[in-house]
């Protein structure tokens, strides 16, 4: 049964607003050092200026503080899963989307909803089923009669939200799944020849159910590639399980408080995203990320690039991988590494930052062949092998 997504009238103006209308976060020189004043001055000042070192440190501290507060709010509701939460938040501030794979009942939907509440952003959920149509997601034109005149008015779909939960996305048909393609990549939807901008920040969290594969449609590679990270939600530990069942079966369930004020939440998230992109990356690290991505492409692929690989090609990559990562994998590596650098209080990326985000960035971009499925090969193990080789040789 398809769950008809509600349409939020308050999002109309956001949909029409261009994406680049977001305020440019700048700080004038000599501003007071506190993060709040730095943030406010950035919102007020239209002329870009180079901040002093204390102000730059304040920006980093503000980012770390915000990140920590969001994590704390999520931890009030979500028991355990700290690594998954951190990866989701990294993807959020890196400006990407996340594909969450986990067995039913592990809190995927609760996690996404709690995140939206903590960020104080608009949130919509779409339960993907086999009869869900693209118009059910993007919206459609409806005949509207007012003062005796009829006109077609665009009714926005549930995709017009800051945080979108695409629950069990693999249960919809490829046609419906592809409705998300343009929205995830371009942050816009096109209906009846009219392009509508999506409200920034636009953050899609899709869930996959690894069991009950009957009647499911595996996501096409093109859509998989649009997710910045793919994270796996494991079963909770015994202690976490005890806490979960204890807290969810009583009346004193924990509530999440918003981290951002209601009307400034989107701007704040965009500001932090802009700060992430200003993290410095040395050319050697860009080369390292590119080498990692290049090493996922097997020699046998007819699309393999010319020239030798900077890293030695792994025998298992050649044996089990049909297609390697796209350049989006490299983008995911660097963006995720930048967020990690800010979380460490640094203004620059290190090799370790790239290594830490390599598995969630690349594991869903490796298209495995039949031999890999027959041997039950995990792409995360292949990437771990690549990282080990890279640590030995490239560094």
């Amino acid at each position, binding site marked *: 049964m398809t769950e008809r997504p509600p349409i939020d009238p308050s999002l109309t103006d956001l949909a029409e607003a261009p994406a680049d209308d977001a305020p440019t976060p700048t700080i004038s020189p000599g501003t007071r050092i506190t993060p709040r004043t730095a943030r406010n001055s950035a919102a007020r000042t239209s002329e870009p200026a180079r901040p002093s070192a204390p102000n730059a440190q304040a920006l980093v501290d503000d980012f770390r503080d915000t990140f920590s507060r969001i994590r704390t709010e999520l931890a009030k509701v979500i028991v355990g899963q700290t690594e998954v939460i951190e990866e989701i938040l990294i993807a959020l501030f890196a400006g990407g989307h996340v594909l969450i794979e986990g067995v039913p009942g592990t809190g995927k939907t609760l996690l996404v909803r709690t995140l939206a509440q903590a960020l104080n952003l608009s949130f919509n959920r779409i339960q993907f089923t086999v009869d869900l149509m693209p118009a059910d997601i993007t919206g459609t034109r409806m005949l509207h009669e007012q003062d005796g005149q009829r006109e077609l008015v665009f009714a926005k779909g549930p995709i017009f939200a800051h945080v979108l939960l695409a629950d069990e996305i693999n249960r919809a048909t490829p046609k419906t799944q592809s409705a998300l393609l343009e929205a995830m990549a371009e942050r816009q939807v096109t209906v009846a020849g009219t392009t509508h901008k999506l409200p920034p920040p636009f953050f899609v969290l899709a869930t996959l159910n690894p069991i009950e594969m009957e009647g499911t449609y595996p996501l096409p590679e093109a859509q998989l590639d649009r997710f910045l990270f793919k994270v796996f939600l494991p079963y909770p530990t015994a202690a976490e399980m005890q806490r979960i069942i204890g807290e969810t079966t009583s009346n004193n369930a924990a509530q999440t408080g918003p981290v951002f004020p209601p009307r400034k939440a989107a701007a704040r998230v965009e500001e932090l995203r802009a700060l992430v992109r200003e993290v410095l990356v040395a050319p*050697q690290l860009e080369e390292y990320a590119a080498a990692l991505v290049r090493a996922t492409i097997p020699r046998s692929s007819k699309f393999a690039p010319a020239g030798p690989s900077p890293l030695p090609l792994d025998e298992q990559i050649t044996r089990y991988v049909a297609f390697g990562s796209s350049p989006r994998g490299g983008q995911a590596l660097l963006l995720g590494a930048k967020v990690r650098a800010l979380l460490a209080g640094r203004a620059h990326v290190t090799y370790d930052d790239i290594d830490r985000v390599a598995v969630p960035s690349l594991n869903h971009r490796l298209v495995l062949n039949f031999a890999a499925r027959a041997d039950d090969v995990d792409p995360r193990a292949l990437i771990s092998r690549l990282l080990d080789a890279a640590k030995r040789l490239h560094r």
Partner: protein
Amino acid sequence: MRSVSVDVAEVEAEMRVLRSRLNALTLQRTAAIGVSTVIACGTTLIVLAVEASAFTFAVATWSAVFVSLSAVAYAGWRLHRSWLTLEAVASFADRRSGLQGRLTTAIADPAPQSRLRVLLIEQLQSASPLWRAATLAPQRIARSLLLVPLALAVLFASIFYARSPAPMTRTPFPLQASPLPLRVASAADMMPPAGADPAGAALQPASADGETSTRRATQGDSSQGSGRSDADGGSAGGDLSNAPGASSSGSGLRNAIRQALGADAERGGAAGTASDPGGGVSDSGADTPHDPTASDTAPQPNSAAGGLTQTAATDPSQTGQRADAQTGDGRGGAGHGSAGSSQSELFEAAAPTGNAPAGAAAKPMAIKLGAFSAAAPQQVEPQHRPSSPTLVSESSDGRHARLADLSAEQRPDAALQKLDVAPEHEAFVRRIFTRE
């Protein structure tokens, strides 16, 4: 607060200083390795030129050339590999000071407009004591440079070792004689120039006191030194030509080393005895004006010289080049003279022969000639020059027959007899050899 660009320039300037220091250290290390290896090879060659056989020296020469070239090539390769760019220096400083890539990023300056760039510079400045050139590369002189003076010290020590006199070593006489043409050539080099007193080239009994003769040669003047070199050069050339794998460059190098060190007279005696046991001409030593004691030792009979009754010419007119040849030959005499334990069996009571040339201060000796009985017809070879003494060589059969007549102690000293016979003594010698 200073502008960011100035701070980045400071970081870059410090990295340049560090780079120059590290590259200078690398240059010093590689140069030290290359130079000390070459010096070590030279030292080895010097020692081998004096001590080892010609074959060993030839092998060592080529090995030294190979090792030296390899060392130079390795030094160049290592210099190329270790030569640091500015980015590499920044990476090195990052690792050494635990800056987690801050210096690398600052040098690359990937985003000049970034708001976080100033934070990076500020963090670097706060940690500046960790990555200053004085901290990371305090030394300006590589410790590897100590290898060079060490190698030079060993080199000089080897030179002094080569120049110092060493105890005479006795080399067993090889039964296989060297090719005759080379012997002749060596002897021809030792011939006196035309016009010299032929009496001076008369056969002289070798000095029984070989060591005394050697010391005399060591104390000679420069003309003696060159003469020794000439005489020994022929002998060394004969040795190298016999050695497998020997080369003219190796022999030339060996001669050059010996000539430079002047060590041939001290060390070459044994080698010369081994390769040229007869020595051709006996040494009277009395001709050398620098050696007043030579006349005392020269007339001593030396049975190993061939068992001939010979006269010791003490012609005072003989000087110069004659002394050179005599000195070289004296080494051969010294080698024979060292076999003094069996001399009493060879010599009988001295008796005047009455065949000594007129005008020569002859000291008659009676020597057994039975050793030459079997090979007498082949012993005399035609003279190459009418005015020069000729070499008299035994044939192989005759030598073996003579060896059979000698005792075990005498056999090592039973050298080939190559005696200079003056033209006026030719008939006398022929008569002696054809008597039996």
